[in-house]
């Protein structure tokens, strides 16, 4: 059997990325051009700025992925690209580059869901065991996804307001921390001895959904009250109080779902899964529960194209194909491909 090589492209937010994946499990090359230094000054990702950077970087990043892999377009099996969700203007750059490249070399196209990509980052670490539960946490997403086999996705819970990463960024702003705020809050929380007691949003008893806007408001109100009393807030205490609330809710709901669906593997994915507080909590809980728990290395947690290539590899085998009329789908829902 010939080896399968997939060139994958990802431009859904503020990273321009390309990768080549062999047989769905091995990274041959993985290139990411981050815009964070440019976006930092705006305190968040500005879509128009993101799109402009993607156009500047796109061919450079694909070229580097091919060069690092020492491969020619003729060595490739297919071209994969993130179809959505994401910033529409940003998605369009990757999609049109992928379509032009596929047309130039007569290669099949594979449209990949960004969240499926995050989950399949794990296929690059260890074989996936089903049923599997994935907690996807990032600046744009907070979702619990149940997978019964390859290509089957059931979203059993999701955020009703802010994504966890979004709440992190907003609280970081309250604490006057630079963007992106997640790593700063994580560090402060680790250093703190005690935290402020902020509320936990459990929602209805059986719900696997999340809500972080109430917690965010509680932090803002706390700061406001302290300001009015002329008292200084202790950023460590606030950070720990906030992080403890987020981590406890995420961990508890993930554990409850893992038990209910009797899963063989739990996966954490997305940028926030790089958070030490969250990783440690999940590791401890699932070690006790004796369910294998996997988090990909940091480089595969944040947005990258290797994860898109990993998902695409299984989609290719299942016969999923895109065409030259493919469009960016900013609100694309996660659907099974089998």
């Amino acid at each position, binding site marked *: 059997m010939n080896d399968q090589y997939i060139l994958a492209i990802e431009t859904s937010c503020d990273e321009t990325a390309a990768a080549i994946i062999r047989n769905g499990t091995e990274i041959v090359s993985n290139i990411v051009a981050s815009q964070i230094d440019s976006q930092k*000054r*705006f305190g968040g990702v*500005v879509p*128009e*700025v993101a*799109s*402009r950077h*993607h*156009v*500047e970087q*796109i*061919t*450079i990043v*694909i*070229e580097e992925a091919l060069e690092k892999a020492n491969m020619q*377009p003729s060595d490739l099996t297919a071209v994969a690209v993130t179809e959505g969700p994401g910033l529409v*203007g940003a998605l*369009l*750059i990757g*999609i*049109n*580059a992928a*379509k*032009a*490249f596929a*047309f*130039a*070399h007569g290669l099949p196209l594979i449209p990949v869901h960004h969240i499926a990509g995050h989950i399949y980052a794990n296929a690059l670490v260890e074989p996936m065991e089903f049923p599997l539960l994935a907690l996807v946490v990032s600046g744009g997403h907070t979702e619990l996804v149940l997978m019964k086999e390859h290509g089957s996705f059931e979203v059993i819970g999701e955020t009703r307001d802010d994504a966890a990463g979004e709440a992190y960024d907003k609280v970081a702003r309250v604490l006057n921390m630079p963007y992106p705020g997640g790593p700063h809050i994580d560090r402060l929380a680790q250093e703190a001895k005690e935290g402020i007691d902020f509320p936990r949003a459990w929602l209805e008893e059986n719900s696997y959904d999340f809500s972080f806007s109430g917690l965010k408001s509680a932090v803002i109100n706390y700061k406001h009250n302290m300001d009015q009393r002329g008292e200084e807030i202790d950023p460590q205490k606030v950070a720990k109080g906030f992080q403890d609330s987020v981590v406890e809710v995420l961990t508890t709901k993930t554990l409850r779902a893992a038990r209910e669906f009797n899963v063989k593997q739990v996966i954490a994915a997305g940028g926030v899964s790089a958070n030490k507080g969250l990783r440690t909590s999940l590791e401890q809980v699932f070690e006790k529960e004796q369910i294998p728990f996997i988090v990909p290395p940091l480089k595969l947690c944040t947005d990258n194209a290797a994860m898109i290539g990993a998902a695409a590899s299984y989609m290719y085998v299942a016969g999923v194909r895109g*065409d*030259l*009329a*493919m*469009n*960016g789908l900013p609100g694309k829902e996660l659907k099974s491909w089998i």
Partner: protein
Amino acid sequence: MIWLGIETSNSPLSIAIVKDGQVVEEIVQNENLTHSVTVMPKIEELFQKAKLKPVDIDAIAVSEGPGSYTGLRIGVTIAKTLAWTLKKPLVGVSSLQVLAANGQDFNGVICALFDARRQNVYTAVFHGTTIEPIIEDHHSSIEGLLEQLQELNMPVLFVGLDIDIFKEKIVAQLGDQASFAPSSLALPRGAHLIELAQKQPLPSVEAVNSFIPQYHRITEAEANWIKDQKKGQ
């Protein structure tokens, strides 16, 4: 020598294939469809009709701006990716110049413009026969443009889909000095784009990676950021 031309700078779409100075295929359409969906299938269709393969092209021309930011990026991304991966030179042409070419042989100057909202335009003024720029591509208030044109004191032909939006103002200020190209000349053409590109020296293949659209405006976020920096000083 075979050229592919891609023009998606605003809502119309035009693609052309020119072989040894002859137009082999050209489409010009104004269906207000999403470029992201239509451009690549149209390119494929044109290649099939012309019985050509992607590797057969020798050079690519693209409208580089100004225009709709998303439209420009779709055209430039496709042109750039094709040129880079096929190792062919990529030539950018002002989208205003491409439009002005529709009025060629006008006895005076040709003013091409696109609506930039809030009574602003992207515009440039070209020599009526050579289509060489007299006033370069820029972003301007409609009033500012009309004052510049008045000072030129030459007959002006306005071209573009958006001239209707400003017609009253133009007539009020310029009177008989102004005339308007008919709607049959309002859509930019890929064949003109290639013609204009052929007048330029061919850039190196290595230059493709750094090719970017000419927006002629910084983003609002950057403008605000610069303002804040100045305030802080």
